[in-house]
């Protein structure tokens, strides 16, 4: 059933589509709504079943408490920002030319290389935790945001290469031939022709890489101490062995997801177009 037929179908068909969309939106938004709701409820209201949603149960105390310890959360957010920005920018800077080479240049066994790059993602993180820790420890880079950024680069780069390679494969050859006729070499074609039309997939892969790095927990846990702690670690600290302060946990989470949501909203058109284009071939 095509989108056009759905759009121009009868009222019943449109109603079904509408209901489907409403269910999808509720399904997708429910965790975020619950997060925000929990962040403004008192603990004693939260533990009731169902939660007590009376007006007197709402409070901003969770946010004031979290903001009172803002040094910790703020420090974590700055660290996350540095780590995510670093790994994203390097992943794009290295990944875009690599993807273009694998898509367009006469690289022997390009498909095999691309698969090998993807295969690196199949290795569970825990399998490389100890060797990675030893290497970074011996380099004296434990508790260093940039070393964490390099580690994140190792799993962001393959994803970026795969998203962009799919897009580059879908670009008509005629565009590059026209550039070649005008005397452009590979580098000029890539820089002046390919990159400008690749804005959507670049944005999509950047946002994807940024979110991956922002949310990562395991490597941040083992490779940091106090100074390089990222946001997920700071949030996890609200959950103790004997006591979990759900309201404060959610207030911290709400504050920390705000930048990610802002980035996603800001680049939403490019993200959608980028992933759609990237899926054309790959």
């Amino acid at each position: 059933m095509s989108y056009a037929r759905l759009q121009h179908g009868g009222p019943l068909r449109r109603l079904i589509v509408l209901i489907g969309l409403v269910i999808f939106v509720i399904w997708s938004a429910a965790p975020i709504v619950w997060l925000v709701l929990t962040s403004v409820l008192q603990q004693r209201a939260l533990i009731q079943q169902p939660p007590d949603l009376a007006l007197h149960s709402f409070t901003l105390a969770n946010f004031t408490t979290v903001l009172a310890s803002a040094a910790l959360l703020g420090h974590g957010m700055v660290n996350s920002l540095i780590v995510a920005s670093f790994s994203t920018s390097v992943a794009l800077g290295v990944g875009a030319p690599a993807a273009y080479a694998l898509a367009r240049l006469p690289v022997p066994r390009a498909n095999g290389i691309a698969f090998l790059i993807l295969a690196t993602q199949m290795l569970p993180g825990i399998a490389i935790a100890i060797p990675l820790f030893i290497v970074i420890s011996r380099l004296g880079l434990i508790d260093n945001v940039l070393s964490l950024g390099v580690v994140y680069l190792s799993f962001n780069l393959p994803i970026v290469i795969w998203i962009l390679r799919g897009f580059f494969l879908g670009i008509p050859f005629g565009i590059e031939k026209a550039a070649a006729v005008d005397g452009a070499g590979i580098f000029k074609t890539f820089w002046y022709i390919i990159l400008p039309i690749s804005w959507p997939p670049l944005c999509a892969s950047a946002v994807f890489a940024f979110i991956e790095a922002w949310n990562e927990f395991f490597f941040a846990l083992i490779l940091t101490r106090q100074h390089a702690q990222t946001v997920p670690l700071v949030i996890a600290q609200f959950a103790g062995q004997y006591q979990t302060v759900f309201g404060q946990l959610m207030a911290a989470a709400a504050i920390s997801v705000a930048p990610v949501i802002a980035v996603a909203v800001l680049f939403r058109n490019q993200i959608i177009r980028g992933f759609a284009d990237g899926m054309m071939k790959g």
Partner: protein
Amino acid sequence: MFDSLNRRNLLKYGAATGVGAAMAGFWTRPVRAADAALNVFCPLPPDPAPPGAAEFAKEAFAKWQADHAASVTYEKLGWSQLHDRMATAFASGSAPWDIIYNCGWVPEFQSFLAPYADQLPKDVVDDLPPSSFKTVTIDAKRYGAVFTLSLLTLFYNREHLEKVGLKEAPKDWAEFKAYAKELTGGGRYGLVFNYGDPAGIGGTASYWMVFLQQAGGKMYGEDRMPVFNNAAGVDALQMMVDLMAWTDPGSISYANINDATNVLLSGRASMMMNWPFMWNTANDPNQSQIVGKVSSAVLPAGPAGTASIDGTDAWTVAKASKNQDKARELIEFYLSPEVQKRQVLDTGWLPIRLSVLADPEVQAKAPNAAVVLEQAKHPYDSFVTPDYNEVTVAVGTQVQQALQGQKTAAQAMADAHDAVVAIVKRRG
């Protein structure tokens, strides 16, 4: 400015900035070159944390550092992440800590720890419950000192009991079942547990260990092989299965004790086994709906009497520490009567020193202290081993299956026994 930005100037400005930064560091850093720098790895409050990391005994802590020419740095982490960071750091041979918090992991990390507790002064050791050393003693060497008496005891909603005409807590298994049955109804359950996570101290297997000891059983024999596939082991599990009829059905999915605690605190259950810290939470109006209604009691006795398990929150010293003596002195400070008293008065974590537990001021502030002290007179073995996590997963999974009616208690015990035998044989 940018006009003058050439390589020579850049080097010049860079050197000047470097010298400036170094001088700033020289003038701002306290001149205490002879100080011993101690690095302590501990949980974040409100989990049990030392003075300086938690808000208590801060002046005494500052004085200790000054008197002992030591500067202490705390590396604090959420409790649930402690083990993984320690395991990675130890495995890679680059753990940077002098003092390390441990919770049932001493056998697992024994090769990285120093048996410093053998050198604790006699007056300190004599004032600690002898059994508190059980989980930190390996091959007759003491690798740690427990700093808070944290045993499972029974917490109950006094109002619920009074409503059905019950005046005091259940004393034995028969009463426990009868009370649970009586208290169930009207959308409320007699009991709540957190059976969702099979592993670790406070997991499903450890609850079974409580009942196992109450039934007169134990996990391992003298040859370190499992000896629980017998009447005591089966009776313990059967007791848990029987109680399920009056236990909040969500218990099978509550993975953390916080989830079960919240059920009790909201008045949806009447009794639960919990750790001493719950006393404060239950009486905090911001977190509880049963403020002033909660009481605690010694766990109901089985055929062999009452028994519990130990939270085993202990201080250990890293074998690789270059300041082992100073680290031991700091732990002695943590265990000093003044600090122990402030620990319970200001944070709610019970002391481990018997003299402080008996202090009237402490008992007034923490009315459950006397109950925990009484519970401590009976067995409270957590049966920790180097492969404790693996063992508790194996046992806890079988217990979960029995609780859900997928196996009989006898079958689950037999299967758990076989699994633990295999683990122990691998251990060698």
